């Protein structure tokens, strides 16, 4: 299916290959950065919406 698709691409393929290349580089960079995130930080970040700091939730405040 993929071959059939690439063979039917019209016009200048340089644009397409260039664009896909940029995305690939971008995607790999973001993925690598993700692997380097510390678990402690990830847990902290995902917990942010659950802390409201309103009077009801004041006990959830950080020390």
């Amino acid at each position, binding site marked *: 299916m993929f071959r059939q698709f690439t063979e*039917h*691409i*019209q*016009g*200048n*393929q340089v*644009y*397409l290959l*260039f*664009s*896909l290349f*940029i*995305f690939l580089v*971008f*995607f790999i960079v*973001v*993925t690598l*950065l*993700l692997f*380097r*995130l*510390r678990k402690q*930080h*990830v*847990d*902290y*970040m*995902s*917990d*942010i*919406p*659950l802390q*409201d*700091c*309103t*009077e009801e939730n*004041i006990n959830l*405040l*950080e020390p």
Partner: protein
Amino acid sequence: MQPDKFYYDNKIVRNFGIATVIWGIIGMLVGLIVAIQLYKPEMNMHNQYTTFGRVRPLHTNAVIFAFVGNAIFMGIYYSLQRLMKARMFSDVLSKIHFWGWQLIIVSAVITLPLGLTTSHEYAELEWPIDILITIVWVVFGINMFGTIIKRRERHIYVAVWFYIATFVTIAVLHIVNSVEIPVSFFKSYMVFAGVQDALVQWWYGHNAVAFFLTTPYLGMMYYFLPKMANRPIYSYKLSILHFWALIFIYIWAGPHHLLYTTLPGWAQSLGVVFSVMLIAPSWGGMINGLLTLRGAWDKVRDDVTLKFMVVGLTAYGMATFEGPMLSLKQVNAIGHFTDWIIAHVHVGALGWNGFLTFAILYWLVPRIYKTELYSKKMASFHFWIGTLGILFYAIPMYWAGFTQGLMLKEFTPEGILKYPSFLETTMRILPMHVMRSVGGALYLTGVIVMAYNLYKTAVQGKLVANEAAEAMPLPKLNPEAGTERWHRRLERKPIWFLIASLIVILIGTFVELMPTLTISSNIPTIASVKPYTPLELQGRDIYIREGCVNCHSQTVRPFRSETERYGEYSKAGEFVYDHPFLWGSKRTGPDLQREGGKYGNSWHYNHLMDPRLMSPGSIMPNYDWLITQKLDTTSTAAKIRAMQKLGVPYPAGYDKIANQDLDKQAKGISADLAKDHIKVKSNKEIVAIIAYLQRLGTDIKAGKTANN
């Protein structure tokens, strides 16, 4: 260190919430009226201000910018304050933002029925309102960034990144797609023409879906879903990955709205490839949302807000699966211009935007009024009638789309079109249109019940306009901060975050738009294509005013089924003087690109007066006011001058004598009509629009005759 005491502003959240509900009901009601007009054209009450062409943009603007827009601001103003542990930056800016946005909507409600439109889909509002939108958007931006800067939480949660990306991208989209040259206070011409204008418009149109209907809602999902389920998001890492991938890829996908048109092939291919890739980050978001509920599915049974969230996320998943499929050229060949697209967008709008909005309203209103929801039963009723409404809406529209798309392409064994009359295919799908309006009515009923339920909830509680909160002020960073990981550092630098998002969306924008806008070989010119005559230009503006483009396309795709039906397929060079382009996106009626010379002037006269005289069963409304209304020729000179500024080669000083040519051509048409015993003065609007319709697509034929 003592914690800071401060107050969250709930009043502004409440105000945006009220606006969401009111505009939602109005926008959906208008939608229901236009849906009924598609099988009962007399539902326009024989009034030019309420015909489909003028009111359909009112529906789309009302639901996108009024209903969804206010819901976005409601969600952002509630969640941003809590995520930043700070009150909004300025109460004054909040108020200006709120009232400014309502003013924009009211301006749309007034100007669109009056026929004041740029004809760019979802960007119809004329230039003074465009400026107002820019000002209000900047106010919103200052208020948002002010809040972020004075925050008491060092790190910026993923929801806020989506808000930042929304702000910056909508600003870029709005400015680029509104580059127009004013002719008068309420009339302008787009700076780009034809293919270039089409590319800019669909780069905008597609990304308005991305950055107005998707990213702010994903941001809201990342805040409200964990709150509703009382558990953190399934994967924070996935949220980072899908955020960056989503904003990178989305910006490239616009050309899938222009497949098989005269847009350069490479740009179409780019649009297709990136549209297919888009499924990954979209589903990343959906999966992250649904998996947040792992181990909490028992809550979904009892909690109506979670029910709305689950169906909303599922609708998002379906719409974002279907989008890439529709981008495949083979599928697009059948689906484009049909009701299939209407079904597709409504699964997204009713399911994703609508249901998420309802979930947030049901969750948020009792909280800011410190009470319980007035009636859980009513909310549950709303959920079920809303879900049924979506099904009754979408299924008939899919059916209608497939049916008409296939009928239009069907040939007999002898090789001629099986359904040469477009009208025959329209009449076949009218029962589906009736069912669709039933679906819409069910959905609207649910919203009205919700409005009552929320009103009663508010009455039984008391608004906590300023909700007390406490948080430690941000301590100064210690020197070790320099060793932080890259993304962690970015998470506490909002301005850098804004710049990073801007760069990511500009990459696709430049690669895709620049070659078509700057390299002239992308738009081959055709010698026989000449500028419109003054009368045709005025006729074209009436065509724009009446919103004909909402039902009639002006682009013949290179399929045998289309060249047989309409004539020669479109060439890029034919549109070089079309400011704006009028290719359209939906064929409720036939394409008009090759309409010129197909019928006599008297046919058009009778057809516009009452379409059923010439095409029995037609669902087009009567345009009889064109016969009585006098053409305003005082604007001709200004229009010619504006076109000259845009590079349309009218001779120097032509603006002063243009009306003489206009009169001459109009008298010719009037005399021709008189031969068929139609008495109409040459200064009526109908003469101008007939002149325009008779010109459509004839330049190429003229060139051929000359060459022979």
